[in-house]
């Protein structure tokens, strides 16, 4: 069950200034949430979220067009919430939308509306269906051949302790076999349906609802493709400054994509890492404090997308201070431009002289007649 419009208070209380911010009156309503997840042969989970809004008295708000359009308009954030049940970072999960948010008059949604221990049934729901590639989620771990663990988190309760998912219905299709499952915290209620093809929890309140669901599944014969390494980088050089006890490392992105690279310096007693974001072809220097003496060995490695892209072993040796050019590139450029202009000017003068020298006599003006001569 999700409570909307509560953020107004959250934001108000965290404002340091003591002034009172005016707010527009907004409709407070709750949303019943039923989630169905079908685990399929191909390592994909098809997730359908059914939402039904209602007021504090338990009355359905499905006929309230403002509320329904607000729920439908929030499809992007709803998709993120659905992904967050399976992954800690939705931006890295591969998924596609099977069916966009739509009003389904035939759907049923179960929810507790305030009467302890009772699930009410609402008719109709706003439904949204997506398919998620499990191998791109953080919930997914391979335990053995064909055996995988999937950890599902009730993200609603994680974000706001008052919220929870009213019904979670997990189904195992085709050759997918449920080998084991668990839920926590320990005081949460067990599933109302538990067999080899289905697990269903009916959660009447937040205290009874599990926060985490952990499944052990057998998915036979599946080969998950791994994403080809795309980021490439090289260590261009390094420079040790004994004066400032630091090592400068120069990294260049040699691939075709912009991305984050992690430069790792290993010295005795420390491993340090710096993160840099580089465009294709771009290079940058990063600085590390050094904790060992001159003459000792350090290793520099560069990583991208969790993979090592390069490694250099260095003996720390002080170099002469870098002599910077007495003039910077802008001055150099300006002098060059002036020389070019001067050169062109002299060439033009030369060409004008040439032209004067080459004028034929026949084209010379006739001599002026002077009657006095």
């Amino acid at each position, binding site marked *: 069950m999700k409570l909307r419009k509560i953020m107004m208070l959250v934001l108000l209380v965290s404002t340091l200034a003591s002034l009172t911010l005016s707010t527009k009156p907004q409709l407070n309503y709750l949303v019943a949430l039923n989630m169905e997840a079908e685990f399929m042969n191909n390592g994909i989970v098809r997730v359908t979220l059914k939402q039904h809004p209602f007021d504090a008295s338990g009355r359905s708000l499905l006929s309230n067009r403002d509320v329904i359009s607000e729920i439908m308009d929030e499809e992007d954030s709803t998709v993120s919430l659905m992904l967050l049940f399976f992954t800690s970072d939705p931006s890295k999960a591969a998924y596609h939308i099977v069916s966009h948010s739509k009003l389904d008059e035939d759907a049923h949604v179960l929810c507790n509306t305030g009467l302890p221990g009772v699930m009410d049934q609402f008719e109709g729901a706003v439904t949204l269906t997506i398919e998620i590639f499990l191998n791109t989620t953080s919930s997914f771990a391979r335990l053995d051949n064909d055996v995988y663990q999937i950890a599902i988190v009730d993200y609603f309760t994680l974000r706001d302790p008052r919220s929870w998912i009213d019904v979670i219905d997990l189904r195992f299709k085709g050759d997918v076999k449920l080998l084991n499952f668990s839920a926590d915290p320990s005081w949460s209620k067990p599933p109302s349906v538990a067999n080899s093809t289905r697990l269903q929890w009916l959660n009447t309140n937040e205290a009874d609802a599990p926060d985490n669901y952990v499944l052990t599944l057998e998915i036979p014969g599946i080969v998950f493709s791994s994403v080809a390494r795309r980021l490439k980088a090289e260590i261009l050089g390094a420079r040790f400054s004994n004066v400032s006890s630091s090592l400068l490392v120069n990294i260049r992105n040699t691939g075709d994509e912009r991305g984050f690279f992690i430069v790792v310096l290993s010295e005795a007693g420390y491993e340090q890492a710096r993160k840099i974001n580089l465009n294709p072809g771009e290079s940058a220097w990063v600085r590390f404090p050094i904790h060992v003496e001159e003459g000792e060995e350090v290793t520099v490695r560069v990583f991208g997308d969790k993979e090592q892209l390069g490694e250099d072993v260095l003996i720390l040796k002080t170099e002469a201070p870098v002599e910077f050019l007495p003039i910077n590139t802008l001055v150099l*450029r300006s002098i060059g431009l002036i020389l070019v202009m001067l050169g062109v000017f002299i060439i033009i003068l030369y060409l004008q002289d040439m032209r004067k020298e080459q004028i034929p006599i026949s084209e010379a003006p006739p001599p002026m007649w002077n009657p006095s001569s």
Partner: protein
Amino acid sequence: MLSGKLVAGLVLTIIGVAMMLWSFSIQPQSFRDVDLNITFKEARIEYLERHSYTYVLEQSFLLRNPSNNTVVDLVYMWLPVNASNQFVKLIWTSLTPLYRKSSEDGVEILVYNISLPAGGALWLNATLQLTVEEYRLTMDNTPWLNYSQVRENTGGKRYWAVENQTYLSIAREIGFEARDPVSASRRIGEWILDHLDYQPMWRRGAEQALIIENGRLTVFGDCEEVADVFVTLARILGVRSRVAHGIYLLEDKDVVTMWMRRTDSDFELSDNWGGHAWPQIYVPQVGWVDVELLEGNTVKIGDFSQYHVKYGFEEKNFLGSTMLYCQAMYIETDAYYFIFRRVQS
């Protein structure tokens, strides 16, 4: 035979073109050495000052059932957290909690099962012993995080736009040259203060916090935007950082009372209401270190006053944490009272 003028013109032009081409091909080969006065090699971490202040905190919440039926509801009361430089002990609570709950980011919540008749009201009270520490820490030559910490703890979240090109450019400009994570954090803080237009508002996150104002890039917002922008830039540079939420005591008195009450359409706050958010950085060998940018218009890293009370942190949760002091699903909270009585300093 070529004229002298032509030769001179051609030579000058060729030299000029060559100089221009050369200037375009020049890449910076090294940073200039900064912080040249560094003479030590080992990391140096030292508390220059540590002073504890103990309060008895009474937090009271007026609960009301707005419906026409008796309601049995779970009521959640947030507590100040036990964390670095803050120690909390629950002394008494007016009702027995059902259980105590902790979030993955360390938020402490007491959960009560409360029944209220239609229109009924009830005060829910708790008394805590709260010790906060004022400290001043010097940190030199501290190493950056290791590889796994950078990979796992410096990614983006809803409020921290680490892939945003503008933030990436700013981070590069101010942070690549930084020698260690503390100096990088100081540069970030200085940049924020130099570009800040402080305006109280609803939290918008780092993505929306940067605007162009009078042709200049500006951090627009209040303490939450300042914290979000700081955390974003820090994470881009590989510094583990998070947001702390809590209360700032605006008065230095033996007894401080602050409150918030529901009105017909809004909330009324006491003049000294001090909801606050500030960033923290994780420094190896020290742990979480507080960063305050809004106290005295200066960057304070590990220079923390006794006026901060921590109620929660935001680090791992993708969508951020919800900190409501005392809330339920059906029962409403009409008033919030916090009384801090200083008992020892």
